[in-house]
């Protein structure tokens, strides 16, 4: 009996101990995820989660406090952006100021594609003196054609 009661007590304690941390774990994960999206302003190439700087400690504490007071992730981000600017976000928001940043590479890609297509098309059409067929003058081309059409000599 005593053994069974002991085991029961043990189970009860264990379940009580694990029930509370389960929610804490979810909370910790949420905070961790949020901190990984935020930049440490002191060591710039580290996230708030990774940084050991004093300010990062303070900001982590602030994020936690805000989250515990019921603020949403967006509200916490807005709180930090209001004080430190968009730079604190690893993912810069899309707005007129950052259009070049977000769409510039794609614009370059499209421009490159257009140039490439123009060159390819021009070469295929055989026009233009920058195409390979244009390397030879029309005289030389005619002579080459004649050689190719000739019977091979000395057969």
């Amino acid at each position, binding site marked *: 009996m005593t053994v069974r009661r002991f085991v029961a007590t043990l189970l009860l304690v264990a379940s009580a101990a694990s029930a509370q941390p389960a929610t804490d774990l979810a909370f910790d994960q949420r905070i961790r995820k949020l901190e990984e999206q935020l930049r440490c*302003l*002191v060591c710039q190439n580290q996230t708030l989660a990774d940084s050991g700087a004093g300010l990062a400690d*303070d900001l982590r504490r602030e994020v936690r406090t805000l989250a515990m007071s019921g603020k949403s992730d967006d509200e916490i981000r807005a709180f930090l952006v209001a*004080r*430190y*600017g968009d*730079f604190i976000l690893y993912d810069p928001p899309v707005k007129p100021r950052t259009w070049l940043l977000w769409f510039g590479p794609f614009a370059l890609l499209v421009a490159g594609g257009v140039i490439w297509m123009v060159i390819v098309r021009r070469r295929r059409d055989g026009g*233009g003196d*920058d195409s390979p067929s244009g390397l030879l003058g029309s005289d030389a081309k005619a002579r080459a054609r004649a050689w190719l059409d000739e019977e091979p000599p000395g057969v």
Partner: protein
Amino acid sequence: MRAIKAWKWTLPLAIFAVVVAFLYVGLSRDPREVPSPLIGKPAPQFSLAQLHEPAKTLGSADMKGRVWLLNVWASWCVSCRVEHPLLLELGKAKIVPIVGLNYKDKTPEGKAWLAEHGDPYTVSIVDADGRVGIDWGVYGVPETFVVDKQGVIRYKQIGPVTAEALERKILPLIRELERS
């Protein structure tokens, strides 16, 4: 086909010029200087105990109607020593009140530091845990803010105040704000 010949050298040249322009601007900027979103916005509300008279507080409301400087400093801050002689001079000239935000410091050490190096501040206030610093977007010490009569932040100096920054930006701005 003459048009294409022209393109052949103008296009790379144009691309090169754009790259040079971007690099020229980009590389001459200090990546440590993150522009503050607080410029043009009302200064954050605060009320903190004074360093030398802990029973008294100083709040943002006390500074309304005056142009003033907030200088963030600490006894552990090495580059604060660089700007300190300039602040002492500015304090002596009594051009503007300089409020010192003693940031994440120990009060005895802060006081000892001022006793050793001189005290340019009209008053220093204690932000021991850096909470008010977060509201001001402080991420490095020293930092200096210029606040106008309406309590709006007009300028932020990141890093030590230099003679050049003082003469070219801070002092002209203060004169302009005083007039308005």
